């Protein structure tokens, strides 16, 4: 747990060849019924929250899962945490069939996959002191038998997330937002997980505190070798933590690539729009604000063909007819678009100032309606 134990990640040893988490063709649909009685002749409305999603996460690595509200990214996280039952698909976690685990077997394995959420105040017991909350997690997983050992372990994890032992005696309401999120991280790592699902873990925090928590997550990954599934609506925070990024839109992954490649060569128009909507703290960088029109359409009435076409500036007739598959467009780079941009325009070009550093790229932005 101390700094310097950076070798943690490589200690995983021979197993590290296979990915820690492998998700194949995962589907989660919700059936929606209006009223109490099933209407005759009217099939129930189906929300395709997660619609055939495939990805994997290597040991000690981070997958950033990005998309707007309603794209299914949180549902995906919940399915992986076994909080929702998927309709179909397979998940291999640490070499086991994760979705087939039941009863005690599942309970014993749950410690390997922990979660942190957006609002730490909502995920901490308001009437339990911090040390008690952490001890409870250890007790629930049957990890340390003695009260004293649990207490010692909670102090240890609090210190590893940059808090003092004295925080253990406080209640959640006595802490700042950043401290609370550190506590939920401490609780999650106290049981020694192999993978953490971070669902919008920094979205509710001040920008300055976000940076602290992201640095902490990175440092914990270096020392403990944990894998992260980092779910976020913004690309910026994900960039610095993720090794790979998958962009999700209406239940499907529309683009996935190694983090830096996604930023330097975004191929899907949706990825580009997401990139362009992140405000850059530099007024000389002129951004086309609001370049992404409209909102994510309802998941109950998906458009025909490409799900993104209604908001896409490049949509043509084929986009309304055929849904594009996620196909490889380079090393580890996959994109689901009939007209992907495979040129070498970078995110920097997309955002570059009007001072004339890259007029070609600038024109590239303006050409699109």
């Amino acid at each position, binding site marked *: 747990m101390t700094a310097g134990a950076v070798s943690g990640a490589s200690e995983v040893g021979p197993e590290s060849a296979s990915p820690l988490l492998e998700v194949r063709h995962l589907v989660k649909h919700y059936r929606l019924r209006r009223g109490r009685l099933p209407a005759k002749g009217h099939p129930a409305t189906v929300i395709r929250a997660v619609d055939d999603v495939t990805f994997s996460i290597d040991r000690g690595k981070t997958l950033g899962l990005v998309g707007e509200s309603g794209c299914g990214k949180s549902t995906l996280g919940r399915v992986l945490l076994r909080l929702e039952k998927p309709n179909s698909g397979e998940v291999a976690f640490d070499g086991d069939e994760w979705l087939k685990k039941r009863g005690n077997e599942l309970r014993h394995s749950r410690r390997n996959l922990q979660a942190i959420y957006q609002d730490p105040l909502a995920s901490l017991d308001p009437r339990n002191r911090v040390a008690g909350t952490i001890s409870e997690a250890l007790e629930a997983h049957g990890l340390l038998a003695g009260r004293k050992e649990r207490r010692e372990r909670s102090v240890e994890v609090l210190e590893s997330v940059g808090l003092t032992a004295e925080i253990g005696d406080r209640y959640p309401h006595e802490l700042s937002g950043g401290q609370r999120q550190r506590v939920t991280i401490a609780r999650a790592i106290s049981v020694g997980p192999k993978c953490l699902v971070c669902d919008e873990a920094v979205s509710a925090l001040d920008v300055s505190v976000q940076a602290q928590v992201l640095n902490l997550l990175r440092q914990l990954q270096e020392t403990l070798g944990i894998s992260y599934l980092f779910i976020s609506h913004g690309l910026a925070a994900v960039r610095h933590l993720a090794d790979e990024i998958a962009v999700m839109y209406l239940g499907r992954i529309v683009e996935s690539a190694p983090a830096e490649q996604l930023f330097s060569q975004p191929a899907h128009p949706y990825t580009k729009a997401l990139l362009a909507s992140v*405000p850059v703290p530099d007024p000389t960088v002129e951004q086309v604000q609001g370049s992404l029109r409209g909102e994510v359409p309802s998941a109950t009435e998906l458009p025909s063909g490409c799900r993104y076409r209604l908001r896409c500036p490049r949509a043509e007739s084929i986009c309304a007819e055929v849904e594009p598959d996620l196909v490889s467009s380079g090393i580890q780079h996959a994109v689901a678009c009939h007209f992907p941009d495979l040129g070498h325009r970078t995110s920097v070009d997309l955002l570059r100032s009007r001072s004339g550093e890259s007029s070609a790229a600038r024109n590239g932005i303006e050409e699109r309606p």
Partner: protein
Amino acid sequence: MTTILQEHLSDAEPLLAVRDLDVQYRIAERDVDLVKGVSFDVGVGEIVCLVGESGSGKSLTANALLGLLRRNKRMTVRGRLEFEGSDLNTISNGSLRKVQGREIGMIFQNPASALDPVIPIGKQIAEAVARRRTERADIRRRVIELVDWVGISDPEQRVKQFPHEISGGMCQRAAIAIALAGDPKLLIADEPTTALDVTIQAQILALLKQIRDDRRMSVLLITHDMGVAAQTADRIIVMYAGSIVEAGPTKEFFAHAGHPYSIGLINAVPRVDGARARRFSAIPGSMPEARNRPEGCAFHPRCSIASDRCREETPELRQTGTQLTACHRADEMLSGLVKPWSTQAVVPLPGGVT
């Protein structure tokens, strides 16, 4: 201090002039300063951003402007809040109500909680419109006009919907429509996009700018995100621990920020352009509580270049180059002699964008 500020402030004629605003809170027989000596102007048609972390006093400043602290018996508000020839801090409650929602509109962070969950949004907007108009057809026309203006598609249908039936972005647009119903001269927006997706944030910020352009309305935008401030504001005001620590026109501010806190806030924004950083440049520590603010410069315990003087003497806001900065070491920083946060270097990764 006030005189320097006045010289410095925008070219636009001031609509709102805040002078020496103090907000105190009485706790355990003691008055605690929550906001201290805050002075600034908002010009006609100008977007001014108040930037700072939670606890910096930026929201309190906005609430004080609208008289929202009056009912709180433990709060004392001092100073002049000049708006259209009257002092909002001393006018009667009756006159204040004429200003609230009419001359000054306000929107908040969480639109869902700002709207009534059991009333359709159209009716809620109509309630706000009815303060100025009486004829039903006229009200209805104005509601549709407002809904259309804030970019809610299919207005005729949308006005019948309840807040829970529409997305967060649409709720915020409805809240903006309510704020605009009184045709205000000033719109106060307190973290209006913090709860929204980045894509919707971009749309709402574009909408605020468009409204400003359409009506020459002034906007006081409160945010903790320097990215939002850079892309939206004409002028930036940075607050820390209840006081202004730096203020200046946006372009100059970002080019020559002279307060370590401002620089820290700018660096903390994760960027999608430029090189990927190995570490985030976080500002260490957290905002001190109002009850135990440190001696000297309130920022010194978190500052990487704090000197003995910073620990003892509170820096005054003074002119440094193009802006106002409250830092003893601002001149050294501007001339490049010292650099805050220099230990957290940006390391480009192989294969990364250079």
